[in-house]
Protein backbone atom coordinates (compact mmCIF):
# COMPACT_ATOMS: atom_id res chain seq x y z
CA UNK A 1 0.00 0.00 0.00
CA UNK A 2 2.90 2.33 0.78
CA UNK A 3 4.13 1.94 -2.78
CA UNK A 4 0.77 3.05 -4.17
CA UNK A 5 0.45 5.95 -1.75
CA UNK A 6 3.98 7.16 -2.51
CA UNK A 7 3.20 7.15 -6.20
CA UNK A 8 -0.10 8.98 -5.67
CA UNK A 9 1.61 11.52 -3.40
CA UNK A 10 4.21 12.18 -6.10
CA UNK A 11 1.42 12.76 -8.64
CA UNK A 12 -0.40 15.13 -6.32
CA UNK A 13 2.78 17.11 -5.62
CA UNK A 14 3.65 17.34 -9.33
CA UNK A 15 0.15 18.38 -10.40
CA UNK A 16 -0.22 20.94 -7.61
CA UNK A 17 3.17 22.44 -8.38
CA UNK A 18 2.98 22.55 -12.19
CA UNK A 19 -0.77 23.02 -12.53
CA UNK A 20 -3.71 20.98 -13.78
CA UNK A 21 -3.64 22.92 -17.00
CA UNK A 22 0.04 22.05 -17.55
CA UNK A 23 -0.06 18.29 -17.02
CA UNK A 24 2.62 16.80 -19.26
CA UNK A 25 3.16 13.26 -20.52
CA UNK A 26 5.37 12.46 -17.54
CA UNK A 27 2.53 13.12 -15.12
CA UNK A 28 0.06 11.18 -17.25
CA UNK A 29 2.31 8.13 -17.35
CA UNK A 30 2.85 8.41 -13.59
CA UNK A 31 -0.93 8.39 -13.15
CA UNK A 32 -1.16 5.28 -15.36
CA UNK A 33 1.57 3.64 -13.33
CA UNK A 34 -0.22 4.47 -10.06
CA UNK A 35 -3.42 2.92 -11.43
CA UNK A 36 -1.51 -0.25 -12.24
CA UNK A 37 0.01 -0.41 -8.74
CA UNK A 38 -3.42 0.10 -7.17
CA UNK A 39 -4.85 -2.68 -9.36
CA UNK A 40 -2.07 -5.01 -8.29
CA UNK A 41 -2.69 -4.20 -4.65
CA UNK A 42 -6.47 -4.44 -5.07
CA UNK A 43 -6.97 -0.81 -4.05
CA UNK A 44 -10.12 -0.38 -6.11
CA UNK A 45 -10.93 3.21 -5.25
CA UNK A 46 -7.34 4.30 -5.85
CA UNK A 47 -7.36 2.55 -9.23
CA UNK A 48 -10.70 4.16 -10.22
CA UNK A 49 -9.49 7.62 -9.28
CA UNK A 50 -6.21 7.24 -11.15
CA UNK A 51 -8.02 5.92 -14.24
CA UNK A 52 -10.50 8.79 -14.11
CA UNK A 53 -7.65 11.28 -13.80
CA UNK A 54 -5.80 9.76 -16.74
CA UNK A 55 -8.98 9.95 -18.89
CA UNK A 56 -9.58 13.54 -17.89
CA UNK A 57 -6.02 14.51 -18.91
CA UNK A 58 -6.19 12.61 -22.21
CA UNK A 59 -9.51 14.28 -23.07
CA UNK A 60 -8.16 17.65 -21.90
CA UNK A 61 -11.15 17.91 -19.56
CA UNK A 62 -9.69 20.19 -16.89
CA UNK A 63 -12.90 20.50 -14.91
CA UNK A 64 -13.20 16.74 -14.46
CA UNK A 65 -9.48 16.54 -13.68
CA UNK A 66 -9.96 19.11 -10.95
CA UNK A 67 -12.79 17.13 -9.35
CA UNK A 68 -10.84 13.88 -9.50
CA UNK A 69 -7.67 15.56 -8.21
CA UNK A 70 -9.52 16.82 -5.12
CA UNK A 71 -10.96 13.37 -4.49
CA UNK A 72 -7.52 11.87 -4.91
CA UNK A 73 -6.15 14.30 -2.28
CA UNK A 74 -8.86 13.23 0.14
CA UNK A 75 -8.26 9.55 -0.65
CA UNK A 76 -4.52 9.86 -0.20
CA UNK A 77 -4.80 11.61 3.18
CA UNK A 78 -7.44 9.23 4.51
CA UNK A 79 -5.53 6.12 3.45
CA UNK A 80 -2.22 7.47 4.82
CA UNK A 81 -3.85 8.08 8.18
Amino acid at each position, binding site marked *: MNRAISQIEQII*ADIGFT*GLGNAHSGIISAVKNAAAICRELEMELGEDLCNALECAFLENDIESAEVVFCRLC*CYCECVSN
Partner: protein
Amino acid sequence: MDWKYIVINEWGRDASKAAACFAAISDDELISAANKGTFKRAAKDLESGEVKLTLRGEFPEKGAAEVSFADGIVTAGKTIGEYSCSCPSKTVCRHIIGAAMVIRRFIEDNPAADVDGQERSTESLSENISEISDMVTDNKGNADEEENIPKKSSKIDEVYINEIKRTVVGILRKGIMNCGNIEQETLMSLSLKGGRGEYGRIASMCRTASADIEAMNSRSPAFEPLKASLLLGRIINTAEALIGEHGAELMENEGYTDRGDGYFIGLGAYPYRSKSGFAGITVLLYEKRLGEYFTYGCGLSDIYEKTADAASEESFKKQLKRHCHWANEVSLDMISGNSFRLINFKADGKNRISSSKQTDCIILCKVTSDSLPEEVRIIPPVQEYDYFMGGGRERFFVREISSLEDLRFDRAEQVLHFSAVSSERVCLHAELLHSSVNERAERFIEENEGRDLSGYAMVFRASRRAVIPVSIIGMGGVNNFFFK
Protein backbone atom coordinates in the same frame (compact mmCIF):
# COMPACT_ATOMS: atom_id res chain seq x y z
CA MET B 1 -11.03 59.45 18.62
CA ASP B 2 -9.79 62.93 17.95
CA TRP B 3 -7.13 63.07 15.28
CA LYS B 4 -6.51 64.96 12.08
CA TYR B 5 -4.88 64.13 8.80
CA ILE B 6 -3.61 66.25 5.93
CA VAL B 7 -4.61 65.52 2.33
CA ILE B 8 -2.09 66.33 -0.40
CA ASN B 9 -3.87 66.03 -3.71
CA GLU B 10 -1.07 65.63 -6.30
CA TRP B 11 -3.56 63.98 -8.63
CA GLY B 12 -5.49 67.23 -8.99
CA ARG B 13 -8.93 65.66 -9.45
CA ASP B 14 -11.96 65.57 -7.16
CA ALA B 15 -11.13 63.83 -3.88
CA SER B 16 -14.48 62.02 -3.84
CA LYS B 17 -13.45 60.20 -7.03
CA ALA B 18 -10.38 58.91 -5.23
CA ALA B 19 -12.41 58.05 -2.15
CA ALA B 20 -14.87 56.03 -4.23
CA CYS B 21 -12.09 53.62 -5.26
CA PHE B 22 -11.48 52.44 -1.72
CA ALA B 23 -13.56 50.59 0.82
CA ALA B 24 -14.09 51.54 4.44
CA ILE B 25 -12.66 48.79 6.62
CA SER B 26 -14.37 48.51 9.99
CA ASP B 27 -12.61 48.47 13.35
CA ASP B 28 -13.66 44.85 13.79
CA GLU B 29 -11.95 43.79 10.59
CA LEU B 30 -8.83 45.75 11.51
CA ILE B 31 -8.66 44.04 14.88
CA SER B 32 -9.21 40.66 13.22
CA ALA B 33 -6.44 41.42 10.75
CA ALA B 34 -3.93 42.24 13.48
CA ASN B 35 -4.84 42.26 17.15
CA LYS B 36 -6.32 44.63 19.67
CA GLY B 37 -2.93 45.79 20.91
CA THR B 38 -1.78 46.81 17.44
CA PHE B 39 -5.13 48.48 16.81
CA LYS B 40 -4.85 50.55 19.98
CA ARG B 41 -1.26 51.46 19.18
CA ALA B 42 -2.30 52.58 15.69
CA ALA B 43 -5.06 54.73 17.15
CA LYS B 44 -2.59 56.27 19.59
CA ASP B 45 -0.12 57.01 16.78
CA LEU B 46 -2.86 58.85 14.89
CA GLU B 47 -3.66 61.00 17.91
CA SER B 48 -0.08 61.87 18.66
CA GLY B 49 1.50 62.45 15.27
CA GLU B 50 0.97 64.19 11.95
CA VAL B 51 -0.45 61.94 9.25
CA LYS B 52 -0.45 62.77 5.55
CA LEU B 53 -2.62 61.22 2.86
CA THR B 54 -1.17 61.78 -0.60
CA LEU B 55 -3.37 61.19 -3.64
CA ARG B 56 -1.49 60.40 -6.82
CA GLY B 57 -4.01 58.67 -9.03
CA GLU B 58 -7.06 56.48 -9.28
CA PHE B 59 -6.89 53.09 -7.54
CA PRO B 60 -5.91 50.43 -8.64
CA GLU B 61 -3.13 52.51 -10.15
CA LYS B 62 0.04 51.78 -8.22
CA GLY B 63 0.62 54.23 -5.38
CA ALA B 64 -2.77 55.88 -5.94
CA ALA B 65 -3.02 56.76 -2.27
CA GLU B 66 -0.22 56.78 0.27
CA VAL B 67 -0.48 57.41 3.96
CA SER B 68 2.73 58.71 5.51
CA PHE B 69 3.71 58.29 9.13
CA ALA B 70 6.91 59.40 10.82
CA ASP B 71 8.36 55.89 10.53
CA GLY B 72 6.53 54.30 7.63
CA ILE B 73 4.69 54.89 4.38
CA VAL B 74 1.65 52.79 3.54
CA THR B 75 0.26 52.24 0.06
CA ALA B 76 -3.49 51.87 0.45
CA GLY B 77 -5.54 49.10 -1.13
CA LYS B 78 -9.16 48.10 -1.28
CA THR B 79 -8.86 45.23 1.16
CA ILE B 80 -6.54 45.05 4.14
CA GLY B 81 -4.60 42.34 2.31
CA GLU B 82 -3.77 44.84 -0.45
CA TYR B 83 -2.23 47.41 1.89
CA SER B 84 1.56 47.45 1.98
CA CYS B 85 3.95 49.24 4.28
CA SER B 86 7.56 50.34 3.94
CA CYS B 87 8.43 49.27 7.49
CA PRO B 88 10.24 45.94 8.09
CA SER B 89 7.17 44.20 9.55
CA LYS B 90 5.97 41.26 7.47
CA THR B 91 2.49 41.24 8.94
CA VAL B 92 -0.37 43.71 9.33
CA CYS B 93 1.51 46.39 11.23
CA ARG B 94 0.23 49.42 13.14
CA HIS B 95 0.98 51.63 10.12
CA ILE B 96 -1.36 49.59 7.93
CA ILE B 97 -4.07 49.69 10.59
CA GLY B 98 -3.60 53.45 10.96
CA ALA B 99 -3.64 53.95 7.19
CA ALA B 100 -6.89 52.00 6.88
CA MET B 101 -8.42 54.24 9.54
CA VAL B 102 -7.26 57.33 7.65
CA ILE B 103 -8.73 56.02 4.40
CA ARG B 104 -12.01 55.28 6.16
CA ARG B 105 -12.12 58.83 7.53
CA PHE B 106 -11.24 60.12 4.06
CA ILE B 107 -14.16 58.19 2.55
CA GLU B 108 -16.52 59.58 5.19
CA ASP B 109 -15.28 63.10 4.52
CA ASN B 110 -15.65 62.68 0.75
CA PRO B 111 -18.80 60.67 0.09
CA ALA B 112 -18.90 59.12 -3.37
CA ALA B 113 -21.56 59.97 -5.94
CA ASP B 114 -22.60 57.46 -8.65
CA VAL B 115 -23.17 58.21 -12.36
CA ASP B 116 -26.78 59.29 -11.72
CA GLY B 117 -25.59 61.75 -9.12
CA GLN B 118 -27.11 59.87 -6.18
CA GLU B 119 -25.08 59.44 -3.05
CA ARG B 120 -23.76 55.93 -2.75
CA SER B 121 -22.80 54.57 0.62
CA THR B 122 -19.56 52.67 0.88
CA GLU B 123 -19.81 49.10 2.14
CA SER B 124 -17.74 47.33 4.62
CA LEU B 125 -15.83 44.42 3.13
CA SER B 126 -17.41 41.76 5.25
CA GLU B 127 -21.11 41.98 5.92
CA ASN B 128 -20.94 39.17 8.45
CA ILE B 129 -18.84 41.35 10.76
CA SER B 130 -21.75 43.81 11.14
CA GLU B 131 -23.26 41.32 13.61
CA ILE B 132 -20.32 41.69 16.00
CA SER B 133 -20.80 43.94 19.04
CA ASP B 134 -18.51 46.94 19.36
CA MET B 135 -14.99 45.70 20.05
CA VAL B 136 -13.34 49.12 20.23
CA THR B 137 -14.76 50.27 23.56
CA ASP B 138 -13.05 47.86 25.87
CA ASN B 139 -15.96 47.65 28.31
CA LYS B 140 -14.98 44.28 29.62
CA GLY B 141 -11.40 45.37 30.26
CA ASN B 142 -10.18 42.46 28.19
CA ALA B 143 -7.21 43.22 26.00
CA ASP B 144 -7.36 40.00 23.99
CA GLU B 145 -9.32 39.71 20.74
CA GLU B 146 -10.21 36.06 21.42
CA GLU B 147 -13.24 37.24 23.41
CA ASN B 148 -14.82 38.88 20.39
CA ILE B 149 -16.14 36.03 18.32
CA PRO B 150 -19.07 36.58 15.95
CA LYS B 151 -22.31 34.80 16.70
CA LYS B 152 -22.85 31.72 14.60
CA SER B 153 -25.10 32.57 11.67
CA SER B 154 -27.51 29.93 10.46
CA LYS B 155 -26.77 30.57 6.77
CA ILE B 156 -23.61 29.64 4.88
CA ASP B 157 -22.05 32.64 3.17
CA GLU B 158 -21.95 31.06 -0.27
CA VAL B 159 -20.50 34.16 -1.89
CA TYR B 160 -17.44 34.03 0.36
CA ILE B 161 -17.04 30.25 0.03
CA ASN B 162 -17.38 30.39 -3.76
CA GLU B 163 -14.82 33.17 -3.87
CA ILE B 164 -12.36 30.94 -2.01
CA LYS B 165 -13.14 28.03 -4.29
CA ARG B 166 -12.68 30.14 -7.43
CA THR B 167 -9.35 31.46 -6.20
CA VAL B 168 -7.95 28.09 -5.21
CA VAL B 169 -9.18 26.37 -8.39
CA GLY B 170 -7.38 29.10 -10.31
CA ILE B 171 -4.17 28.39 -8.40
CA LEU B 172 -4.56 24.65 -8.95
CA ARG B 173 -5.02 25.13 -12.69
CA LYS B 174 -2.02 27.38 -13.18
CA GLY B 175 0.18 25.58 -10.66
CA ILE B 176 1.78 26.81 -7.45
CA MET B 177 5.05 27.43 -9.31
CA ASN B 178 3.31 30.05 -11.44
CA CYS B 179 1.81 31.89 -8.48
CA GLY B 180 3.13 35.13 -7.08
CA ASN B 181 2.21 38.10 -4.93
CA ILE B 182 -1.29 38.44 -6.35
CA GLU B 183 -2.33 34.92 -5.38
CA GLN B 184 -0.54 35.22 -2.06
CA GLU B 185 -2.29 38.45 -1.16
CA THR B 186 -5.67 37.28 -2.42
CA LEU B 187 -5.49 34.21 -0.20
CA MET B 188 -4.41 36.33 2.77
CA SER B 189 -7.25 38.72 2.10
CA LEU B 190 -9.73 35.83 1.98
CA SER B 191 -8.29 34.52 5.21
CA LEU B 192 -8.71 37.87 6.92
CA LYS B 193 -12.25 38.11 5.62
CA GLY B 194 -13.12 34.77 7.21
CA GLY B 195 -11.56 35.85 10.47
CA ARG B 196 -11.67 33.57 13.46
CA GLY B 197 -15.38 32.92 13.60
CA GLU B 198 -17.42 30.20 11.97
CA TYR B 199 -15.24 30.17 8.84
CA GLY B 200 -12.11 30.03 10.94
CA ARG B 201 -11.00 26.66 9.65
CA ILE B 202 -11.17 27.48 5.94
CA ALA B 203 -9.77 30.95 6.64
CA SER B 204 -6.83 29.36 8.41
CA MET B 205 -6.25 27.04 5.43
CA CYS B 206 -6.20 30.06 3.11
CA ARG B 207 -3.59 31.70 5.33
CA THR B 208 -1.43 28.58 5.21
CA ALA B 209 -1.80 28.38 1.43
CA SER B 210 -0.69 32.01 1.22
CA ALA B 211 2.34 31.19 3.37
CA ASP B 212 3.12 28.23 1.08
CA ILE B 213 3.22 30.48 -1.98
CA GLU B 214 5.41 32.96 -0.13
CA ALA B 215 7.75 30.16 0.97
CA MET B 216 7.92 28.79 -2.57
CA ASN B 217 8.74 32.16 -4.08
CA SER B 218 11.41 32.86 -1.48
CA ARG B 219 12.88 29.36 -2.04
CA SER B 220 12.41 28.61 1.63
CA PRO B 221 12.95 25.02 2.83
CA ALA B 222 9.60 25.43 4.59
CA PHE B 223 7.91 24.92 1.21
CA GLU B 224 6.76 21.33 0.76
CA PRO B 225 5.12 20.71 -2.62
CA LEU B 226 3.12 17.69 -1.43
CA LYS B 227 1.68 19.41 1.65
CA ALA B 228 0.94 22.56 -0.34
CA SER B 229 -0.85 20.56 -3.08
CA LEU B 230 -2.82 18.49 -0.57
CA LEU B 231 -3.87 21.72 1.10
CA LEU B 232 -5.28 23.08 -2.15
CA GLY B 233 -7.34 19.91 -2.51
CA ARG B 234 -8.49 20.18 1.10
CA ILE B 235 -9.58 23.79 0.68
CA ILE B 236 -11.66 22.94 -2.39
CA ASN B 237 -13.16 19.87 -0.70
CA THR B 238 -13.98 21.89 2.41
CA ALA B 239 -15.57 24.65 0.33
CA GLU B 240 -17.69 22.04 -1.50
CA ALA B 241 -18.69 20.43 1.76
CA LEU B 242 -19.60 23.76 3.37
CA ILE B 243 -21.98 24.53 0.51
CA GLY B 244 -23.35 20.99 0.60
CA GLU B 245 -25.98 19.30 2.72
CA HIS B 246 -23.93 19.00 5.88
CA GLY B 247 -22.23 22.36 5.63
CA ALA B 248 -23.44 23.59 8.99
CA GLU B 249 -21.62 20.71 10.70
CA LEU B 250 -18.33 22.00 9.38
CA MET B 251 -18.84 25.51 10.64
CA GLU B 252 -16.51 26.37 13.47
CA ASN B 253 -17.92 26.69 16.92
CA GLU B 254 -15.12 28.85 18.15
CA GLY B 255 -17.11 30.79 20.69
CA TYR B 256 -15.92 30.93 24.27
CA THR B 257 -18.49 29.72 26.78
CA ASP B 258 -18.63 30.21 30.53
CA ARG B 259 -17.30 27.16 32.36
CA GLY B 260 -17.54 28.45 35.90
CA ASP B 261 -14.73 27.34 38.20
CA GLY B 262 -11.99 24.85 37.50
CA TYR B 263 -9.13 23.17 39.34
CA PHE B 264 -6.13 22.81 37.09
CA ILE B 265 -2.77 21.09 37.19
CA GLY B 266 -0.03 22.72 35.15
CA LEU B 267 1.85 20.16 33.07
CA GLY B 268 4.38 22.37 31.37
CA ALA B 269 4.66 24.74 28.46
CA TYR B 270 5.90 24.38 24.89
CA PRO B 271 6.54 26.79 22.04
CA TYR B 272 4.80 26.92 18.71
CA ARG B 273 5.74 28.57 15.46
CA SER B 274 3.47 28.59 12.43
CA LYS B 275 4.57 28.61 8.80
CA SER B 276 3.35 32.18 8.42
CA GLY B 277 5.75 33.25 11.16
CA PHE B 278 3.51 33.62 14.19
CA ALA B 279 4.96 32.19 17.37
CA GLY B 280 3.90 31.78 20.96
CA ILE B 281 3.70 29.54 23.97
CA THR B 282 1.06 26.97 24.89
CA VAL B 283 0.59 25.79 28.46
CA LEU B 284 -0.85 22.32 28.95
CA LEU B 285 -3.33 21.96 31.81
CA TYR B 286 -5.36 19.13 33.28
CA GLU B 287 -8.72 19.91 34.91
CA LYS B 288 -9.19 17.50 37.81
CA ARG B 289 -12.95 17.50 38.20
CA LEU B 290 -13.77 17.17 34.49
CA GLY B 291 -10.83 14.90 33.78
CA GLU B 292 -10.04 16.85 30.63
CA TYR B 293 -7.01 18.53 29.16
CA PHE B 294 -7.09 22.23 28.43
CA THR B 295 -4.58 24.53 26.83
CA TYR B 296 -3.84 28.17 27.36
CA GLY B 297 -1.92 29.89 24.60
CA CYS B 298 -0.30 33.25 24.19
CA GLY B 299 1.42 34.76 21.16
CA LEU B 300 4.77 36.49 21.50
CA SER B 301 4.05 40.16 22.20
CA ASP B 302 6.69 41.47 19.84
CA ILE B 303 5.83 39.22 16.88
CA TYR B 304 3.59 41.78 15.23
CA GLU B 305 6.18 44.55 15.34
CA LYS B 306 9.60 43.06 14.88
CA THR B 307 10.68 40.44 12.41
CA ALA B 308 14.16 38.94 12.58
CA ASP B 309 14.49 38.57 16.35
CA ALA B 310 10.78 38.33 17.18
CA ALA B 311 10.87 34.60 17.91
CA SER B 312 14.24 34.54 19.65
CA GLU B 313 15.09 32.59 22.77
CA GLU B 314 14.94 35.82 24.75
CA SER B 315 11.45 36.64 23.47
CA PHE B 316 10.15 33.24 24.51
CA LYS B 317 11.73 33.51 27.96
CA LYS B 318 10.34 37.00 28.41
CA GLN B 319 6.87 35.87 27.38
CA LEU B 320 7.00 32.90 29.73
CA LYS B 321 7.71 35.13 32.70
CA ARG B 322 5.46 38.04 31.75
CA HIS B 323 2.82 38.72 34.43
CA CYS B 324 -0.22 39.62 32.38
CA HIS B 325 -2.70 36.77 32.41
CA TRP B 326 -6.19 36.94 33.85
CA ALA B 327 -7.27 39.34 36.56
CA ASN B 328 -4.39 38.44 38.89
CA GLU B 329 -1.80 38.90 36.14
CA VAL B 330 -0.06 35.59 36.63
CA SER B 331 2.70 34.37 34.32
CA LEU B 332 2.78 31.33 32.06
CA ASP B 333 5.74 30.12 34.11
CA MET B 334 3.57 30.11 37.23
CA ILE B 335 0.58 28.30 35.76
CA SER B 336 2.64 25.74 33.87
CA GLY B 337 4.22 24.47 37.07
CA ASN B 338 1.50 24.85 39.68
CA SER B 339 -1.96 23.66 40.60
CA PHE B 340 -4.38 26.53 40.58
CA ARG B 341 -8.02 27.42 40.66
CA LEU B 342 -9.68 29.47 37.95
CA ILE B 343 -12.81 31.33 38.91
CA ASN B 344 -15.24 32.25 36.16
CA PHE B 345 -13.16 30.94 33.28
CA LYS B 346 -14.18 30.60 29.65
CA ALA B 347 -13.10 28.05 27.09
CA ASP B 348 -13.98 27.19 23.50
CA GLY B 349 -14.98 23.91 21.87
CA LYS B 350 -11.32 22.85 21.69
CA ASN B 351 -10.81 23.45 25.42
CA ARG B 352 -8.69 26.52 24.82
CA ILE B 353 -9.00 28.82 27.80
CA SER B 354 -9.72 32.49 27.27
CA SER B 355 -7.46 35.22 28.62
CA SER B 356 -10.45 37.17 29.95
CA LYS B 357 -9.60 39.68 32.67
CA GLN B 358 -12.82 38.64 34.39
CA THR B 359 -11.21 35.32 35.26
CA ASP B 360 -9.43 35.02 38.60
CA CYS B 361 -6.52 32.67 39.11
CA ILE B 362 -5.55 31.43 42.56
CA ILE B 363 -2.27 29.55 42.69
CA LEU B 364 -2.49 26.59 45.05
CA CYS B 365 0.71 24.55 45.14
CA LYS B 366 3.67 23.35 43.10
CA VAL B 367 3.16 20.35 40.84
CA THR B 368 5.54 17.48 41.54
CA SER B 369 5.83 13.98 40.11
CA ASP B 370 4.20 12.41 43.16
CA SER B 371 1.21 14.78 43.14
CA LEU B 372 0.06 13.85 39.65
CA PRO B 373 -3.32 12.11 39.47
CA GLU B 374 -3.47 8.61 38.01
CA GLU B 375 -5.77 9.66 35.17
CA VAL B 376 -3.06 11.68 33.41
CA ARG B 377 -0.94 8.54 33.09
CA ILE B 378 -3.53 6.88 30.84
CA ILE B 379 -2.68 7.16 27.16
CA PRO B 380 -5.89 8.19 25.37
CA PRO B 381 -6.86 6.04 22.37
CA VAL B 382 -6.14 7.28 18.86
CA GLN B 383 -9.17 9.11 17.47
CA GLU B 384 -10.70 8.18 14.16
CA TYR B 385 -9.15 10.22 11.35
CA ASP B 386 -11.24 13.22 10.37
CA TYR B 387 -10.20 14.69 7.00
CA PHE B 388 -11.97 18.00 7.52
CA MET B 389 -10.52 18.45 10.99
CA GLY B 390 -6.99 18.20 9.60
CA GLY B 391 -6.43 14.90 11.32
CA GLY B 392 -7.93 15.50 14.69
CA ARG B 393 -6.92 16.79 18.07
CA GLU B 394 -3.67 16.13 19.83
CA ARG B 395 -3.67 13.68 22.72
CA PHE B 396 -1.82 14.39 25.93
CA PHE B 397 -0.50 12.09 28.62
CA VAL B 398 2.12 11.71 31.31
CA ARG B 399 4.53 8.78 31.47
CA GLU B 400 6.71 7.75 34.34
CA ILE B 401 10.28 7.31 33.06
CA SER B 402 13.57 5.99 34.33
CA SER B 403 15.84 6.99 31.43
CA LEU B 404 16.09 8.47 27.94
CA GLU B 405 17.81 6.14 25.50
CA ASP B 406 18.47 5.30 21.84
CA LEU B 407 19.04 8.85 20.73
CA ARG B 408 19.37 9.12 16.99
CA PHE B 409 19.35 12.21 14.80
CA ASP B 410 17.88 11.67 11.35
CA ARG B 411 19.72 14.14 9.13
CA ALA B 412 17.39 13.67 6.19
CA GLU B 413 14.25 14.37 8.21
CA GLN B 414 16.06 16.68 10.68
CA VAL B 415 14.37 14.88 13.56
CA LEU B 416 15.82 13.78 16.90
CA HIS B 417 14.43 10.37 17.81
CA PHE B 418 14.66 8.89 21.30
CA SER B 419 13.04 6.38 23.62
CA ALA B 420 11.52 7.27 26.98
CA VAL B 421 12.06 4.10 29.00
CA SER B 422 10.02 3.28 32.08
CA SER B 423 11.24 1.35 35.13
CA GLU B 424 9.65 -1.80 33.62
CA ARG B 425 11.79 -1.25 30.51
CA VAL B 426 8.77 -0.33 28.41
CA CYS B 427 9.94 2.02 25.65
CA LEU B 428 7.94 4.88 24.24
CA HIS B 429 9.32 6.30 21.02
CA ALA B 430 9.26 10.08 20.87
CA GLU B 431 10.77 12.69 18.59
CA LEU B 432 11.61 16.34 18.25
CA LEU B 433 11.82 18.22 14.98
CA HIS B 434 15.08 20.17 14.80
CA SER B 435 14.31 23.90 14.77
CA SER B 436 15.33 27.09 16.52
CA VAL B 437 12.35 26.93 18.88
CA ASN B 438 13.17 23.33 19.86
CA GLU B 439 16.91 23.79 20.32
CA ARG B 440 16.93 23.93 24.11
CA ALA B 441 14.68 20.88 24.37
CA GLU B 442 16.96 18.94 22.02
CA ARG B 443 19.95 19.87 24.13
CA PHE B 444 18.13 18.78 27.29
CA ILE B 445 17.35 15.35 25.79
CA GLU B 446 20.96 14.94 24.61
CA GLU B 447 22.45 15.98 27.95
CA ASN B 448 20.23 13.59 29.86
CA GLU B 449 20.71 10.55 27.64
CA GLY B 450 21.43 7.53 29.78
CA ARG B 451 21.04 9.42 33.08
CA ASP B 452 19.03 7.80 35.85
CA LEU B 453 15.70 9.61 35.78
CA SER B 454 13.82 7.38 38.22
CA GLY B 455 11.10 9.29 39.98
CA TYR B 456 10.55 11.57 37.02
CA ALA B 457 7.53 11.75 34.77
CA MET B 458 7.58 13.11 31.24
CA VAL B 459 4.63 14.90 29.68
CA PHE B 460 3.93 14.15 26.02
CA ARG B 461 1.62 15.33 23.28
CA ALA B 462 0.76 12.95 20.49
CA SER B 463 -0.46 13.68 16.99
CA ARG B 464 -1.32 10.88 14.59
CA ARG B 465 2.28 10.81 13.39
CA ALA B 466 4.48 11.53 16.35
CA VAL B 467 4.83 11.64 20.10
CA ILE B 468 6.53 14.85 21.21
CA PRO B 469 7.82 15.72 24.69
CA VAL B 470 6.38 18.74 26.51
CA SER B 471 8.11 18.88 29.89
CA ILE B 472 9.58 16.72 32.63
CA ILE B 473 8.25 16.65 36.18
CA GLY B 474 10.29 15.60 39.19
CA MET B 475 10.11 16.01 42.94
CA GLY B 476 11.42 19.55 42.48
CA GLY B 477 8.60 20.55 40.14
CA VAL B 478 7.98 21.04 36.42
CA ASN B 479 10.97 21.59 34.17
CA ASN B 480 9.99 23.50 31.02
CA PHE B 481 13.04 22.38 29.07
CA PHE B 482 11.97 24.22 25.93
CA PHE B 483 12.76 27.48 27.70
CA LYS B 484 15.44 26.72 30.29
